[in-house]
């Protein structure tokens, strides 16, 4: 056996770089936000609403503050500054004022010497609620009483829908919206509410600086947007609030909105002691926004040859109690509704409504997951109705550069949909394993439910796409600062949140490439030393951080040539090409583009289903993803596998269940996520078609696999069972007791 010499100078763009955080995470040595500890620290606890909708008649903290170990009990009266905050719209109370709109809404805070003292004190706070009828059914929300009479999302350039509880309504009218086709297929699809289910619950530590300011160490996705929301609520200037990135145990969109930041800082400033808040698992399910549950009505019209003529879709999204990022999710769902296909005509209506259900917002895929599930089922129905091979039908309609999206935007950059479809279709699944088999390799797995009885095999295919980076006129930028030190080393500052996706490695790879230097380190992420990086969201962080770090490195080298021998310290801001909003009446672009760039992913899935018990084993997944340029191929494959697993969870098991707005399965006992026995091996093909305007040609890679895997897995289940399966997660009942497909 030959031994290859280990290459020491690792770490440039395109090389396979092992992750620095992997060994400590695997060994349990990584310091997460929940591990933070400082001397004199108090523990904060949040009292939350047990009701989905209620008026608050009174709050009495007198008993709590008198309890042993308790240093503070705070209510909305104690919020030093603005009493409302929000990621995009300032509509959510820091602490409930005179009403609660969802189960788990924060009502009061306690800080105590011991977490149990804090919990017990919180219990002794007497809140008098007058329960109100919850708006629990999104389909009836526009007929029921208005939850936000002040309509916080109105006046922002959207279509200001006068109906009660409309958070955003958008209609995309493309071509002749009444155009008829030779063949029509219809369907109604439903997606349940998925949770990000990150393993590290919300946690952080707020430390008063003794001068009225505060340092907040927190697991978040965007340090500077936290600061922009926290400082006004505390009544402090931005400079008095410093946010530091603490170890993040997963995010997936669930850490875009604030959790404990203002609460911890209020308690810390009130007590003049460091205060730590860690949510438990049950609390975490109410502590962040979820993926929007959706109902989607579709009508696809096509020619006999299989060309799409007109796609008509109506999308309803349950935004829950507050706006969060629902307006952007509603618009994204509409923009990507028909999938990566060209249709000369389309009518797409997307509505997000307020209800008293858990608030929904950002989650990996951001509106495109729900619509991909619906529109890919429609493409399979169309293929069946036309008796065309489903892959051929997709190739026939695949988007390509130069084509026009339903929003009127022409694709000017990379869009290798057909290549991606062909690459995934060409992957060969492993042959069927003979019986008898170990039960672990059969549907039902460790449950020992079959020796092969009832097992049918099916192959499914799907393709999906979504946008990279922020859209619709958002000023999306990223800053990076580079110091070239006199000892020959370099230090990079960038506030990009490392949420497990590996952006710190990407930043170092870019800096090493640009500086042609190995001795480069990345300073800890914080708000005080560098401008905003934007959010670790929307599959944008690699592109944006790479752009900013590249520009800062090049500027630093230039500076160095002017002042040789001196230390250089430069900061640069990178912006992608500007976008403009969609027309509120027609959903058409108002400039060159509403979205910056797009990435596609195609998947072939083999599943085995025990049709008598409705249990599933996904056997194999082949994925081809349009990645632009793989900065670190191993990490890209990791994102494809992880993203696929999250989509598998939605396909088969993950759903936040509610009854009248109350969450009934807030635990990992009853909210199940895939185990190693549920997740098959993934064979990945990376399609490297460079994005012309992006640094190094990169695209984002985090979301496309999640967008498509749910659709592809359910397609395999339909092929195996002949069932309709119009709702995810697919329940065993739907398979063994459900209705059969119309066309199958």
């Amino acid at each position, binding site marked *: 056996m030959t031994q290859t010499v280990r290459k020491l100078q690792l770490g440039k763009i395109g090389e396979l770089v092992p992750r620095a955080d992997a060994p400590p995470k695997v060994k349990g040595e990584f310091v997460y936000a929940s591990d933070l500890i400082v001397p004199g620290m108090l523990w904060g606890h949040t009292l939350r609403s047990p009701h989905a909708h209620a008026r608050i008649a009174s709050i009495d903290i007198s008993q709590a503050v008198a309890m042993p170990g308790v240093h503070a009990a705070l209510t909305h009266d104690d919020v030093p500054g603005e009493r409302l905050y929000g990621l995009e719209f300032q509509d959510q109370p820091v602490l409930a004022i005179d009403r609660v709109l969802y189960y788990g809404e924060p009502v009061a805070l306690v800080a105590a010497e011991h977490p149990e003292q804090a919990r017990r004190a919180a219990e002794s706070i007497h809140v008098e609620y007058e329960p109100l009828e919850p708006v629990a059914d999104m389909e009836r929300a526009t007929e029921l009483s208005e939850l936000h009479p002040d309509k916080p999302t109105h006046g922002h350039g959207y279509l200001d829908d006068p109906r009660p509880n409309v958070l955003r309504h958008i209609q995309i009218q493309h071509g002749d919206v009444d155009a008829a086709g030779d063949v029509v297929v219809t369907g109604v699809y439903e997606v349940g509410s998925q949770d990000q289910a990150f393993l590290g619950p919300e946690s952080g530590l707020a430390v008063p600086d003794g001068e009225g300011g505060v340092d907040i160490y927190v697991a978040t996705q965007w340090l500077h947007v936290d600061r922009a929301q926290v400082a006004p609520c505390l009544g402090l200037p931005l400079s008095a609030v410093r946010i530091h990135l603490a170890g993040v145990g997963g995010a997936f969109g669930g850490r875009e909105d604030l959790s404990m930041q203002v609460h911890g800082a209020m308690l810390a400033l009130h007590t003049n002691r460091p205060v730590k808040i860690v949510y438990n698992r049950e609390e975490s399910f109410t502590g962040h926004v979820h993926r929007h549950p959706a109902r989607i009505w579709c009508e696809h019209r096509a020619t006999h040859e299989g060309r799409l003529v007109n796609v008509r879709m109506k999308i309803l999204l349950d935004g829950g109690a507050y706006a969060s990022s629902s307006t952007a999710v509603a618009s994204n769902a509409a923009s990507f509704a028909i999938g990566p296909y060209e249709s000369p005509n389309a009518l797409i209506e997307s509505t997000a409504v307020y209800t008293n259900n858990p608030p929904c917002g950002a989650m990996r895929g951001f509106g495109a997951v729900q619509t991909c599930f619906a529109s890919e089922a429609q493409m399979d129905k169309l293929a069946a109705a036309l008796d065309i091979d489903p892959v051929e039908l997709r190739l026939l309609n695949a988007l390509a550069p130069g084509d026009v999206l339903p929003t009127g935007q022409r694709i000017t950059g990379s869009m290798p949909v057909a290549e991606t479809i062909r690459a995934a279709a060409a992957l060969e699944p492993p042959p069927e394993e003979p019986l008898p088999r170990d039960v672990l390799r059969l549907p039902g797995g460790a449950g*020992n439910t079959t020796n092969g009885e009832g097992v049918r095999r099916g192959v499914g295919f799907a393709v999906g796409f979504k946008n990279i980076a922020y859209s619709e006129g958002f000023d999306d930028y990223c800053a990076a600062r580079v110091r070239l030190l006199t000892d020959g080393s370099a230090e990079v500052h960038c506030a990009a949140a490392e949420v497990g996706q590996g952006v710190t490695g990407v930043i170092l790879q870019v800096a090493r490439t640009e500086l042609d230097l190995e001795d480069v380190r990345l300073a800890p992420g914080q708000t005080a030393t560098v401008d905003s990086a934007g959010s670790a969201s929307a599959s944008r962080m690699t592109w944006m951080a790479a752009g900013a770090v590249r520009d800062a490195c090049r500027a630093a080298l230039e500076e160095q040539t002017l002042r040789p021998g001196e230390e250089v310290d430069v900061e640069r801001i990178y912006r992608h090409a500007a976008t403009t909003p969609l027309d509120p009446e027609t959903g058409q672009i108002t400039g060159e583009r509403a979205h910056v760039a797009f990435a596609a992913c195609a998947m072939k899935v083999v599943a085995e289903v025990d049709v008598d018990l409705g249990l599933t084993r996904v056997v194999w997944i082949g994925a081809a993803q349009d990645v632009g340029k793989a900065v670190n191929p191993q990490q890209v494959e990791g994102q494809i596998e992880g993203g696929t697993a999250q989509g598998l969870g939605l396909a088969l098991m993950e759903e936040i269940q509610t009854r009248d707005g109350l969450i009934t399965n807030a635990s990992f006992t009853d909210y199940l996520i895939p185990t190693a*026995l549920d997740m098959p091996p993934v064979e990945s093909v990376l399609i490297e078609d460079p994005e012309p305007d992006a640094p190094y040609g990169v695209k984002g890679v985090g979301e496309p696999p999640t967008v498509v895997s749910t659709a592809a897995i359910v397609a395999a289940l339909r092929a195996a069972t002949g069932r309709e399966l119009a709702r995810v997660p697919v329940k065993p009942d739907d398979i*063994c007791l459900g209705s059969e497909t119309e066309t199958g």
Partner: protein
Amino acid sequence: MDVLTPRTLAEALRLKAEHREAWPIQGGTDVLVALNFDRGRPACLLNLNEVAELRGFTRQDGALRLGSGLTYAEVEHGLLRDVLPALAEASRTVGSPQIRNRGTIGGNLGTSSPAGDALPPLLVEGAEVECASVRGTRRVPLGEFVTGVKRNVLEPDELITAVWVTPSRAPQTFMKVGPRNAMVIAVVSLAVSAGDELRASFGSASPRPVLVTAPREEADSFPERVAAAAAPIDDVRGSERYRRHALRVLTERALKRVLV
């Protein structure tokens, strides 16, 4: 909260008599979850991990005495696999390897959940629960031990010290349905044996364990009989209709395995 750690069974029984409100804890796979989710605030825990008499199993006159501290991992991998195969299969379906290393048969009985995976295979094998206190020791048939959802006949001063079972040596199997392929609480489970008669018991489909029996020649109607004996409910884990359907399917498949 105090934690009492007896070193002998006698000391454990004395402490339980003195601290009737104490929660016994062995593996902690149920107790710690309850504490973490704040579902109870016991004044003290009675830690049984150091009591050697509760560990392992012994044989007496053809009967087996399974100590209440016997872990699922020990049942799954050890000598019991051949004599209590359905219990071994059931143990394999419990949680993850880490949970199976900690969780115990005694704890499963103490919790008396309708979803307890050890209960159906033990009931099919005619197990008896040994309950001990400073007042003495008694044996209660498993079907009488559990009286309802998470309720049993254990007196406040008693501890579960063992389970007695005389292995039937009849062909037997255990199956469990869950929405994923490992680490699930049963949506419905089933143990079936075919000795002199057909015997079946199910989990997550009735408030307390039920034993269904029939002569071997009535195998054809047995699946229907098992499904009819269940009293499932609709909850977050599954529907009443599905549970009854699955019991029918599982019984048919189980009979194919055991009627050899």
